[in-house]
């Protein structure tokens, strides 16, 4: 168990709802859910969720900490915002799902190898590096996440698509040497580090 997770367990004891309210983005809205299930029926990847948002909200109130934070479900969110606009109680469901996924990720409880968890991490690290996304290194990094052999296999399978993009001038092989970047990279990095520091302190990610 990570220290941050241990601290959270000790601090909130059996009140997982309180923990979510304090540490999860927009978590203070969870208690507004009236269990109508419109979110579950509105999600494009609904059939792939082990627990729909409606169930997740009830599980939080029931104190099912382990089950919620280790769930694969929140990672199915495509950020389509259907659930938000249809929720009769106006819960920011998409944001809460993102928040729960991030919290589980930070505590080390999110499922290992979950593809969207891995891709999301790769994406953020990619954008932070230069201040702008490098689509080439992002794609290569994603294809090679499971090792060189798997990467070459995926790369070959997607070769036609990649070459088509290069030909259409929508993918630049030269991006491998750096690519687009913000000029004040030093300031950008200092700002991101400061924001991370404040958030970590506030949510108990640091001792």
């Amino acid at each position: 168990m990570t220290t941050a997770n241990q601290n959270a367990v000790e601090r909130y004891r059996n009140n997982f709802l309180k923990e979510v309210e304090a540490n999860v983005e927009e978590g203070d809205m969870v208690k507004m859910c009236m269990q109508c299930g419109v979110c579950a029926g509105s999600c494009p990847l609904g059939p792939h969720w082990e627990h729909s948002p409606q169930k997740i909200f009830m599980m939080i109130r029931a104190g099912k900490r382990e089950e919620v934070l280790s769930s694969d479900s929140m990672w199915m969110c495509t950020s389509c915002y259907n659930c938000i606009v249809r929720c009769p109680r106006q819960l920011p469901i998409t944001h809460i799902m993102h928040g729960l996924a991030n919290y589980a990720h930070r505590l080390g409880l999110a499922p290992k190898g979950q593809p969207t968890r891995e891709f999301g991490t790769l994406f953020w690290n990619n954008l932070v590096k230069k201040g702008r996304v490098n689509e080439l290194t992002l794609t290569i990094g994603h294809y090679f996440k499971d090792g060189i052999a798997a990467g070459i296999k995926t790369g070959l399978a997607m070769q036609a698509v990649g070459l088509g993009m290069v030909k259409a001038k929508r993918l630049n092989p030269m991006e491998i040497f750096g690519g687009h970047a913000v000029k004040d990279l030093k300031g950008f990095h200092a700002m991101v580090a400061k924001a991370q520091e404040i958030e970590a302190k506030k949510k108990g990610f640091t001792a």
Partner: protein
Amino acid sequence: MAKKEYAFYPGCSSQLKASASNYLTSVNSMCEKLDVKLTEIPDWNCCGASVGYAEGGELPRLAINARNFALAETHLPGQDIVATCAACWLGSRETKERLDHTSQLMKETNEALAAAGLNYKGDVNIRHMVEVLIEDIGYDGIKKPVVKPLEGLKFAGYIGCQTNRPFGIAGESFENPKYLDQMVETLGGEAMTSYDQKVTCCGGALAFSEPEKSQKQIKDIIESAYDSGAQMLVTPCPLCQANTEVYQSEINKKYGTKFNMPVLYYSQLMTVAYGGSIKEAGLDGQLIRAEALEKICGK
């Protein structure tokens, strides 16, 4: 028409030789005809997009968006920020909303910005290019420069998610927004109003991480466009465009379909109708060439 000026936030995918570089090409051509001046926010950065949350958390995401706001306030005071990318627009709008409503987050965001020598006062206004077209230019204004109406061409207006939810375009419904159809008709084309997948999710960033699940979505989106009688798909979103165009060949392999439907941006349609060339409309950036539109360019 008086010249209109905006602080422009093109976003990562619109950069030179990036996946939506032809979007930017056509937006520039379109704006020239409409006498709209876009000035790039100097040194803008990525918005974090929709999957940035996993590692990025809340405050770092707010901070990177607020950095763009602070730069716009300083260098382009008084100008609305205009984004062409759905995710850029959404990330910025969400950030603005969160900072407007929660003074604690505004305080913390400015603490982070200070590390880059910046400060955000809270004055910016965030808009999508489609809002600028509909609200500031108007359908009459969109029609005015048309010299080559898109006669006889049938389009399915695929709006997707993030240009539509949770903010959307004022006066439009979430379930059946009609502005894209109206834009097509304004340009002389035929909008397939029976198209029933106009707000279906293409999978977004999960096209990368969950390809099977996303391609099932994309299959429905394209299939329904064919069913409606459309020749082409038109969209306001760069990720929708890329996902629905790029993966058609993969879907054909997996499902035995014969999809070959061009996917265009509204700005490409406008540039063509305004008399622009294939290059000016970014039609040379299509993986699935839009021959019917290219023909109009050559007329």
